[in-house]
């Protein structure tokens, strides 16, 4: 049936055609990100339409920049984005897995197996797989030595640009997280990773990056006359302008006497002066504001020997306020209708200092008593490098957070996928219906992860994966060889090893989500048997008739 009979303004593809088309589109997407997968994956250079360059190997970032048009491919892009939001890492693997699942499903359809059978098979396989991860493969972190977090972070970093210095950055990430640990009202430990401020500064090598105890602000003091360092700082956080009082629109002052003019000017100055006096009187010696401070007001601060910083980012200010125990004020009015400055709104810090890093001056708010903020200052040779470092650190922070919050981990390096593949293969044999085929295809699809890892590392993928499978087979059949179930790939040496001992670890929740999301996306696309593309609405009639 074509669009003509249906009388719609657009084209329609149905049945096998649309399925093949979707699979092709999805495979194309996965092929793009495939080579950047794993510790020895390579990076992509993306140039957008205004000429900006991004170099990355983060799947979500690559796909976001691609501007895909095919609707099925768009589902995959959303998938990567979702994995990024929910887990923060594993964006490439989720895309590769979903594409592989679809490819295998399409082959089954070509063998005349109805898509609905495949869908139910995939669903069963997915729930079984997740059950197996949670019940058998996952390891409670309590049973492991202390350095498990640093190992998960290192595993996540290994695929990124900072992989070579993973020891260095791993420690940095773990230290940063330890600083921002908070306990919520339910008594659970939370790690709000956006309290870690990542700043980028050109110059020096990546190894010179540092963790700052406290918060780094990308601003400078408002006037040269102000002190650059204040110890025992009392900080006021303002979210309003410090400038000469202005009348609101529609309000006029009519002057009848020339002498009054001067009086008005004085009064304008006095209003703001009184405000500043209020702030200073409360004991504040550092004033941070999101808005401006005009020259006149600066004078008062300079005279009082206080430090004032204008045009701070609002988010930064909120975080500093939280870390130092202060509150951000949007006005000075109190409940009596007058203006006052409450000392309880002041935050305290050991030291507020302006330091020079590379070409930029930064303000550091150092605080050792009240740990709730950390800043990482990244150094690097180029802005492209810095951007990629920032993304990598963000991923690692997310991974560490998930590990700490969920408390279970699994071995990495393809270990989980191969174990699941063997398990599901055996499980499929217990099914007496056509779903058996779908489940074994699911098992087969999972192997794409170790295979691709090996291919990217320039190892013999077929042999390595067979070896890995044999180890896992032994682990699941022979009770004495149980420890083999943690076997994964050692990509540098091209061998199979116990990845739990080697410290290649991932949080279990990341794996579970990855499999869940990939299956869900594959099923969404597989269920489509008809695609109708409506033509864009024509522009409103051209008045000139051309």
């Amino acid at each position, binding site marked *: *049936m074509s669009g003509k009979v*249906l*009388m*719609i303004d657009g084209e*329609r593809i149905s049945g096998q055609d*649309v399925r093949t088309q979707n699979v092709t589109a999805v495979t194309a997407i996965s092929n793009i990100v495939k080579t950047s997968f794993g510790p020895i994956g390579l990076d992509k250079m993306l140039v957008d339409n205004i000429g900006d360059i991004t170099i990355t190997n983060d799947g979500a970032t690559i796909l976001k920049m691609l501007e895909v*048009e095919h*609707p*099925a491919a*768009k*589902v995959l892009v959303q*998938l990567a984005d*979702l994995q990024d*939001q*929910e887990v923060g890492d594993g964006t490439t693997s989720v895309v590769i897995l979903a594409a592989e699942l679809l490819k295998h499903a399409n082959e089954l359809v070509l063998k005349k*197996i109805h*898509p*609905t*059978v495949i869908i139910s098979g995939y*669903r069963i396989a997915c729930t079984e797989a997740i059950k197996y991860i949670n019940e058998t493969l996952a390891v409670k972190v309590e049973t492991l030595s202390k350095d498990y977090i640093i190992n998960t972070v290192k595993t996540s970093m290994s695929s990124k640009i900072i992989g070579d210095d993973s020891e260095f950055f791993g420690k940095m990430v773990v230290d940063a997280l330890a600083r921002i640990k908070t306990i919520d*009202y339910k008594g659970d430990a939370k790690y709000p990773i956006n309290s870690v401020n990542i700043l980028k500064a050109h110059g020096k090598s990546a190894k010179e990056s540092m963790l700052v105890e406290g918060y780094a602000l990308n601003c400078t003091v408002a006037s040269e006359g102000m002190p650059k360092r204040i110890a025992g700082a009392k900080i006021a956080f303002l979210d*309003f302008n410090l400038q000469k*009082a202005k*009348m*609101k629109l*529609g*309000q*006029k*002052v*009519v002057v009848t006497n020339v002498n*009054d003019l001067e*009086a*008005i000017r004085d*009064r*304008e100055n006095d*209003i703001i002066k009184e405000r500043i006096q209020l702030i200073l009187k409360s004991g504040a010696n550092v004033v941070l504001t999101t808005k401006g401070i005009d020259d006149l007001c600066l004078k008062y601060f300079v005279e009082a020997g206080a430090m004032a910083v204008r045009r701070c980012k609002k988010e930064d200010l909120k975080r500093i306020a939280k870390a130092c125990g202060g509150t*951000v*004020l*949007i*006005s000075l*009015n*109190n*409940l009596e*209708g007058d203006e006052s400055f409450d000392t309880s709104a002041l935050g305290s810090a050991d030291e507020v200092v302006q330091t020079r890093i590379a070409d930029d001056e930064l303000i550091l708010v150092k605080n050792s008593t009240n740990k709730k903020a950390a800043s990482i200052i990244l150094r690097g040779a180029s802005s492209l490098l810095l951007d990629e470092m920032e993304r990598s650190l963000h991923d690692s922070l997310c991974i560490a957070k998930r590990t700490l919050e969920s408390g279970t981990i699994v071995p990495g390096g393809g270990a989980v996928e191969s174990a699941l593949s063997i398990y599901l293969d055996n499980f499929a044999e217990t099914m007496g219906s056509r779903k058996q085929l779908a489940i074994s295809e699911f098992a087969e699809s999972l192997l794409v992860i170790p295979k691709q890892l090996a291919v990217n590392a320039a190892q013999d993928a077929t042999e390595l994966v067979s070896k890995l499978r044999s180890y896992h087979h032994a682990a699941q059949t022979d009770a004495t060889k149980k420890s083999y179930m943690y076997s994964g790939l050692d990509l540098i040496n091209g061998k199979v090893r116990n990845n739990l001992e080697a410290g290649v670890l991932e949080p279990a929740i990341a794996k579970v989500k990855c499999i*869940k999301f990939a299956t*869900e*996306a594959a*099923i*969404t696309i597989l*269920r*489509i*048997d*008809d*695609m*109708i*593309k*409506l*033509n*864009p*609405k024509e522009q409103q009639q051209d008045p000139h008739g051309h």
Partner: protein
Amino acid sequence: MSAPSRGDFEEKEKEKDVRTSNIVAARAVADAIRTSLGPKGMDKMISSPNGEVIISNDGATILQHLEVRHPAARMLAELAKAQDIEAGDGTTSVVVIAGALLGAVSTLMSKGIHPSLISESFTLALSKSLEVLTNMATPISLTDRSSLVKSAITSLNSKVVSQYTNLATISVDAVLNVLKDPLTADNVNLKDIKIIKKLGGTIDDTELVKGLVFDQQSSHAAGGPTRVNNAKIGLIQFCLSAPKTYMDNNIVVSDYTKMDKVLKEEPKMILEMCRKIQKSGCNVLLVQKSILRDALNEYSLHYLAKLKILVVKDVEREDIEFICNTIGCTPVANIDSFTADKLGRADLVEEVGTADGKVVKVTGVPNPGKTVTILARGSNKLVLDEAERSIHDALCVIRSLVKKKYLIAGGGAPEIEVSQQVTEFSKTLPGIKGYCVRAYAEALEIIPYTLAENAGLHPISIVTELRNKHAQGEKTAGINVRKGAITNIIDENVVQPLLVSTSALTLSTETVVMLLKIDDMVTSR
């Protein structure tokens, strides 16, 4: 020249063209969505003109987005919509049945039977079918929760979200919650059930909140509270900011010493308003969205935060009634009438973080049972949208059961039974009418046929076996799509409300009769 006998007629060329073109167009639509029928139906992906992608297998949704141009085809789209409004489910079936009936019509017309005779017979057949359906149905009581859940599951079976049984129980609980009295109720206002979508998590995380959920986060620009126990909730429809006059105005200050007074007037005024709010005991404030000016300015936020009042701003106007019903508050349009008796109550108001921003949850309302909120979650936007549509369908199914408290079997069983009994009935009719009624009965077999086809079964053998079973008196034999065989469908818990089936038959027959009556089409512009 002898006058042609009744029922024998020669069509004029033009009339024939119009009818054929109408039938062809309408059948094309029915064919297009046929593959989406049933639990194993497939989805359609529609890429709309502005590039937005919709994935759905809900007949009404698909047709709504298809933008068919042929007027007759549009009637079918309208038909799906009508079924959606009336029963909320079975939108695909109604279009598929209409398509099959039109197929029967074209065969009948090619045999030279007059359209008006066909339509007369179809109406007759319809009334007989409804009678058969009603006889088949078993009454249920709304207190029988498990039967309700079963029919909700049947409705959800065909959707992407079918593996999540939690949606069915949530829908049933939602409807039962808003029912005033399950024994006497004969309608449900689905407006009392609000569905809020939030990206992130999986569909498993969808939950029923006996209270309110606000899509937006609380305003804490000034560091106000984000969690309030024993909340007293006020809902205001005025703005807490400097008033504006309609006309342009100028305030002229003649004396510079009065500048201070002018500057301080605004905060002072707002403070007074905030004071009044606090005095009433209110600690959670909902502020209606205002397009004329800012509903809140920095002063009011500042004061409200100082007074430890949680603020949710930008509440949509259309939600006001729902909110009032839920927490028992009265909207206040003027600060002077803001008194304690206008406040609603809740045990807890708190801001909860999700992957896609924060939501404000109001739980523990004093007299629950008037309204509920379903917080739908899904891993991507497409799944989430489809989940919302599916919940809506499930809710409608339950509503149909409230309206008409009868259940019938699903899985093609009612259609086959109707088809057989109407065929029997046709034998009692004299002349051409009997012939037309039989064609009607045969057309109904399209439902089991398509069900089998979509499930990857052999349609002809399945339908034949089904006919055989029904001829032997097994009224509840239907297609068990999961097992791929004919079984007693009631045992498999595949049940649907009677209203869905009757309304599908009535609406599709009426549409077909209407299409038949058209013999000329004039396009005017």
